[in-house]
């Protein structure tokens, strides 16, 4: 008889948060799994949060630059 994997409240909440912050465009989608693991383990640092935000800003800026370049062409 295999043991049923129990989900903890922490893990459930972590998944909800990870989904919401990605959907809000604050954290890159590519970082969702990493963020989820850190939320569950409680190891997300101030630097991690800042990095996610900066990556998303950079990605947004790159995207808008590309869009502008395409529009100019």
């Amino acid at each position, binding site marked *: *008889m*295999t*043991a*049923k994997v*129990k989900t*903890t*409240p*922490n*893990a*459930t*909440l*972590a998944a*909800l*948060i990870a989904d*919401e*912050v990605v959907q*809000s465009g*604050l*954290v890159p989608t590519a970082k969702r799994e990493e963020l989820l693991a*850190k*939320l*569950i*383990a*409680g*190891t*997300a*640092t*101030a*630097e*991690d*949060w*800042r990095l996610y*935000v*900066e990556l*998303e*800003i950079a990605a947004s800026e790159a995207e808008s630059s590309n869009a502008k370049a395409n529009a100019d062409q």
Partner: protein
Amino acid sequence: MPKPMLINKLSMHCFRGASQPVDLAFDITKPLVMIFGENGTGKSTIIDAIDLLVNEQIGSIADRSSATVAKHGPTIGKKPADVSVEVASGTQQWKGMLTGSRAAVTGPAPRPTVHVLRRSRLRRLIEAEPAERYKALAKFIDVQGVEASENALAAAVATLNSSLTAAIQQKQQSDDGLAELWNAEGKPGSTAIAWGRQKSKQDVSTLQAGVTLLNSVLGHTATAAAQDVQYQTAVTARRSAQQTVDAVKAEIAVLPGLAPEQAVQLIGMLESANAIISTPGQPEKCPVCEQPKDLKQLKSSLDSQLAGMRTLRDIQKRLSTAEATLAGAVQNVNSSSSTLLVSFERLAKVLQATPPSPVAALGIAWSTHATDDAGRKPDTTAAEASAAIAQLAATVAALQADRDAHTKDLNQHNAIRQHCQRIDEADELVRTSDEVLKRLRRLLDIVRDRRLRFTQGVLDAVAAEANRLYGEIHPDENIGLGSLRLDTAKRGSLHQDGHFNGHTDVPPQAYFSDSHLDTLGFCVWLALAKREDPADAILVIDDVFTSVDAPHLTRIIDLLAVECTSFCQVIVTTHYRNWRDRYRVSHGPGNNVQLIELQRWTLLRGISPRTSTLAIDDLATAITATSFDRQIICSRAGILLEAILDGLSLQYRCSIARTRDGDYTLGELMDGCTKLFKTLTIRRPKAGDSSGATEDIAMKPLLNSVGSLAFVRNQVGCHFNLAGSDISDADICRFGDDTVALVRAVTCTECGDMCRRKKGTFFECTCGKTQMTPLMI
């Protein structure tokens, strides 16, 4: 999907009350196991055994003072090594042992999930301190990992906010500093920052070089001046020494007689002769002329001559000293002269290229006083150097003034440059970090809001479920649990509020009665157990409803009958016979309950369980038994009928003549229910039909049938009655069969319960499969 783990067997020996080996077999087809036993029959021992095997604890001992596992876990007079406890779930088995003060269990993992509720823990959640209450609920609301990450996020926001605030403050300070400098300069240009940026770009290397040159000149000038002072001092000393020598020589020149050298020789001879004459044992004749001599007179003459000549000797000594001093002074002059010339040459080297204007005005050709490019040394004398230094000393104040002015200009330039740099840095930081800060704040809002909503959502759900259950037990009583809420100011702290007769936010423990607190504790415990994978969990409730009165207990029994279907197994112990009897006489879903009865306990006999059967099954068995017992059949049928009709008459408020003690005879009950049975109809699924078709059963014929033979109950089943002997076995059998038919008709074939729950236009049974109409007569 893994099957839930139910307990199907428990075996004990030498454990607590199990002084003899005892096995309990649990019917896993029944969701509820009821273990009835009067006080001291071993109910808690059974619960302790289960607790030991799945949770490795013996709660009833833990809850009592002066009781230890090692000493009081084994049956009295036995040792821990004698204890044997086993529980089986399917093919899996767990064995428990007592090793010293601890319980040890062997067996496969995982073990069944069992929630044990005892009387001593019933109010633990309700009466606990907020911190203890939080611990009890922690596994449902503990989100430490997310909280730690949230704290890190908050720290990121705070740090960046501080940096930005500091940068803005610094920018403001630099703006103010720059404005001050700008004002001091008369506000040139359009704005302070424009002026500052322009000034920052200016080349200050010339200014820098000027300050460096002036510092160097002043330094070398000071050094040379100090050397010059030493030189002058040496020259003065030499002059003085020369004068001293000249004076002594002058003294010698005026002395008459022998030349000084000759006088010194003569002094030496006379002193030697004086020494000889003074020595005892000298001859009385002169060894040269052999004339007699008067030694005393000779010595006196020598002393007189020597005294006159010593003055000359002293002067000679002074002359030697003065000449030595003069030689030293000359050496000093030479040495200090060399040092002076070296430092003067260095000074000249610094000044030869571009002397500062006060120095240039002196008109001194500094290049002539420095080694040239070909390596030729200058022939400057110390006197010339000294003179030049004296001229230079007059310009020192002007040089210092120039240097200070240049330094001030340089400092101002640096200050302007620094202010502009800080302003630019602050602007850059704000530009890059402002957006980051905004997003971090939004992230923090999301994380925090989600966490609070999640945890409060869990608490609200627990409170709502607890309240729902509580409402089932205490309908229309205007009392209940208000809310469970986290203390936002203090981590790990959980508050509860109750409502009582229209007042909210009251602590339940202040206003609720003991039994209300007990039932509230039970409801909260049950609500929590339902959150934790109930389909895989076993509930074990150890005789906790001791404070509850009969009407409330009835509702608890009905509640458990419904709630037990949420769990894979529920085991309840009780000393309340009424509860057991309700199931036995179909006033509850008896088909879903396994009834175990514990008989009287003695140390010799130990725990003695036996299976109780439903009254309807007992009657059916008696009717078909090989040994046909008329009295038993009539007695059982009569009791069962009374129970059924009593329940129906209460439910429908049938008209029956009142009695003082509330007991009614079978005849009275049947008469009272006659009107009811005219319209009483049971609707249930057709047996053997899976299409969902139902059948309606009119109860009147069944009552008529049993009523026609009801007299046999008294005559055969109750009292000594000769007339009863005339009643045939067939009639008794028919009476029994008719009773069985009536009871089976009015109870659900699935759950075994009567239809007691009002639902819309009918009553329904516990499982909802059987309905009864009308709602009233």
